[in-house]
């Protein structure tokens, strides 16, 4: 009972903190993998404490495929998508890196879906 009320307070905070860590990955310590792990902790907390399956297993597989193909696309064709070149006024803002922002976001999507799939398979029978 106590865990349900306290977790409703801070799960939103955990997810926002994880998003902050992925988006500013080129300026502060963090990046795709670390932010993805933090968001996965929040989603796993929703599943274990509140007994709600936020994402289905089929949805998670599709997210993993989307993230993976996004990274592969950026590796081969990312050089064409460089309108956000580094101007001196953009140096400490979100568009500071060239396409590091998109790499971080796709990496976080892949990591979240993989870790949540692992936790779903370990906790069976509700």
């Amino acid at each position: 009972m106590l865990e349900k009320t306290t977790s409703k307070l801070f799960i939103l905070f955990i997810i926002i903190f994880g998003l902050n860590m992925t988006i500013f990955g080129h300026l502060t310590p963090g990046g795709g993998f670390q932010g993805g792990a933090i968001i996965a902790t929040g989603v796993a907390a929703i599943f274990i404490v509140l007994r709600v399956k936020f994402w289905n297993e089929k949805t998670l597989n599709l997210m993993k495929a989307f993230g993976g193909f996004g990274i592969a696309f950026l590796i081969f064709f990312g050089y064409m998508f460089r309108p956000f070149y580094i101007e001196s006024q953009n140096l400490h803002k979100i568009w500071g890196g060239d396409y590091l922002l998109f790499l971080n976001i796709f990496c976080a999507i892949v990591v979240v879906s993989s870790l949540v799939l692992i936790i779903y398979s370990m906790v069976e029978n509700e």
Partner: protein
Amino acid sequence: MIAAYSIPLLISTCFMLVIFKNEKIIKTLVILSIFISFCFLIVSSLDVFNYGTETFAVSNWEAPFGIILVLDKFSSTIASLILFLSLMIAIFSFHIVKERVKEFSTLLLLGVVGSLGIVITGDIFNMFVFTEIMNIATYALTAFNMKKEGLEAAFKYLIVGSITATLMLISISLLYSNLGTLNIADIINKINLGDKSVNTIFLMFLLSFCIKIAVFPFYIWKPDVITGSLEPIAAFFIGVVTTTSIYVIIRVLYTILGVYYLPWLSILAIFSMIIGAFLAILQDDIKRILAYGSISQLGYILLAFSSGLVFQGLYHLVNNAVIETLLFLSIGTMTLHKNKIEKISMYGFLLGALSLTGIPPLGGFFSKFFIITGLLENNFFIYAVVSSFISIITLLYYMKIYFMIKKGEKKNYWPIIILVIFVLLLSLASIWSQIFKGIEVDLLARNKYVSEVLGP
């Protein structure tokens, strides 16, 4: 060359991401991807043998600051051997693995990518990353049949493998703190062999790989792991994983350190030869006898390399890898035909066993003969006498297996037929010793490696 190892990686990630319904597509994609990268690698190695070493800078970052992939004669031979053996294992394993084919092919392709990456790269931390990729794939493959022996074997291998990987990472970090660079050619430039701390660091690095190939004091985990896994996976272990670990040891000893005589490694090799042979006679289980036998053959290879006999050791390495794969795959037909081995693989088993003990005119006779005469020329009399005595005992335990198995009916398994033909081709000793002598000249020239990678 870069296509050779990006293709299996891409296909295995496709398997992980996309949902395939038809099993035939998965099987043909796996075999096709390994075959295409094998063809690319054969073309690149013919270029290397004619024109000299090839290098490739990843993402155009130049020599000491980025990751360089180096193909010289030694790496291209070992890489072609690895891809050929894994192609045979992949074709054969689809007869045995019937369910969960998608997961099996993902793991097998990751193992192939990992072992290929170790052989091609020219950067020490990249070697660590690919070692870990190959390790994780083999941890999961050992536990694949989900029986009691498989799970226990996988857990033991996981603990041992993680300890060796941690040791490797400690030595890499201390090496970076001492020298300031991670590129192998740059390390050869900056190293100063009289320094005691550098010697200790490389001793730790060699120790972690000696645990991984299971020489004398560290061999206890290996027979459990080989008994508990499926037969194609045991063949992958001894054919591919052990060969890449020996490649790393030779690369560190001959190219980086420039050391050709290591007395303590020859003593460990002699003991592992003796203990492997004597323990193999006492066992009752077929796969356990073969596992102890492989520990004994490994002793021959390490004895040759730590006494300065390079081309003899290379010949025995190739012999050992191909013949042990043939032995495990022919034992593997026993699960398909209910305790009777199929007719052609029975003859293949006999041929491989006779070749490894050293019966003329097969290939194993020539490689052991060259090793023993090389030891006699360098005045290691005791080692030569012990090696010839142990090869008599080798015959004992292979004949023990041969009398335990029964003959079944005939069916054509293509990988076993191709491997038997290759074993017969390995007995043309004059051609193979010419090729390996060419590789030996390349291995003993350290400065040539540096000048070809870093530029003049």
